[in-house]
C-alpha cells in the first residue's frame, strides 16, 4: 500500500486491504524480534571473526530487507523508486568496496 493508493481513495475496500497489511506488520515484527535474539545468541558463541561477520551481516540483511519491503512498502513500489534505489545500491557497493580493496592480504577483517 503506497501513498499513491491513499491519493486515489480511502474507501471501505481500502480498509479491508489495510487490515491484511496490519496482520503482515505484526508478523514482520515477530520475525524481527526473533532475528534480533538470533543475532545476540550467535555472538555469544565467539565464532572466528570471518564467520561471525558473515553470519551477522546475513541476519542484518534479512532484517533490513523485512523493514524495507514491508514497513517501507518497497515490495509494491513504482519503477522510478526502484531505479533511484538501484543506482544508490551501485554507488553504496562501490563505496564499501573501496576500503576493502586497499587491503593487500585478503579482505577478511583481522
Amino acid at each position, binding site marked *: *500500500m*503506497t*501513498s*499513491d493508493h*491513499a*491519493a486515489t481513495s*480511502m474507501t471501505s475496500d*481500502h*480498509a479491508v486491504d*489495510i487490515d491484511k*497489511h*496490519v496482520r503482515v*506488520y*505484526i508478523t*514482520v*515484527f515477530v520475525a*524481527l*524480534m526473533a532475528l*534480533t535474539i538470533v*543475532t*545476540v545468541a550467535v*555472538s555469544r558463541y565467539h565464532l572466528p*571473526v570471518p564467520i*561471525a*561477520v558473515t553470519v*551477522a*551481516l546475513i*541476519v*542484518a540483511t534479512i*532484517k*533490513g530487507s523485512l*523493514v*524495507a519491503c514491508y*514497513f*517501507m512498502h518497497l515490495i509494491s513500489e*513504482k*519503477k*522510478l*523508486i526502484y531505479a*533511484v*534505489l538501484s*543506482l*544508490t545500491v551501485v*554507488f*553504496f557497493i562501490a*563505496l*564499501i568496496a*573501496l*576500503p*576493502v580493496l*586497499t*587491503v593487500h592480504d585478503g*579482505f577478511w*577483517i*583481522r
Partner: protein
Amino acid sequence: MDIPYTVEVRRDTGLTNGKIGIWLFLASEVMLFGALFASYILIRVGAPSWPRGDTFLDVPLATLNTIVLIASSVTMVMAWASLMRRRFGTFRIYMGGTILLGLVFLVVKYFEYSHHFHGGELPRTHNFLAIYFTLTGLHGLHVLGGMVVNAYFWGPGAKLWKTNPVWFTNRVEHSGLFWHFVDLVWIFLFPTLYLL
C-alpha cells in the same frame, strides 16, 4: 500558490512529489552512512588488532534499544494505517507511542554515553570509541530529527487532517519512511559495533 502533486500523482513519475522527494533524500542518507561504514572498515582492517564491541559496550542495553526501535517502526506504520482507515484518534495513540519509544531510545543512549564519559572513555581515547561515537552520535541525531517531525504531525501539523486528509496521510507516510530508515541503519549498526 499551492504546492503541486501533493495528493494527485504526476503522470510522468507515477508518484506524488513528496514521495519521490523523500526517496531521493533517503538515497543521499544511504551514501552518508555508507561513507561512515566505509571509514569503519578502513580503520578496522588497518588496525593491528581490534577489540570485540562487548569489551567496551553494554550489549543488553543495546539489545533493549534494538527492540525499542523496531517496536517504534511498528507503531509508526500502524499510525499511518490508522489514517488510511480514517481513525484519527488511533493515529494519535500510535504516533504518540512512536515518539515515546524514540525518547526511550535516546534516554538509554544517554545512559550508555554517560557511563563511557564517567569512565574516561572518550572519542579521543582510541579508534574504536572514535568510530563508535561518530556512528551512534549521527544516528542519534537522526532519531531526534525524526521525533521532531513526528511530534509536529502529532501536534500542530495534524490540523491538515481536517482540511486535506489525503495530503496529511501522505505526509505521515513520508515521515514514516524516514523513521524506518533510521531503524534500518540501527539494524546494521548494532551487530557491527556491539557484537563483532
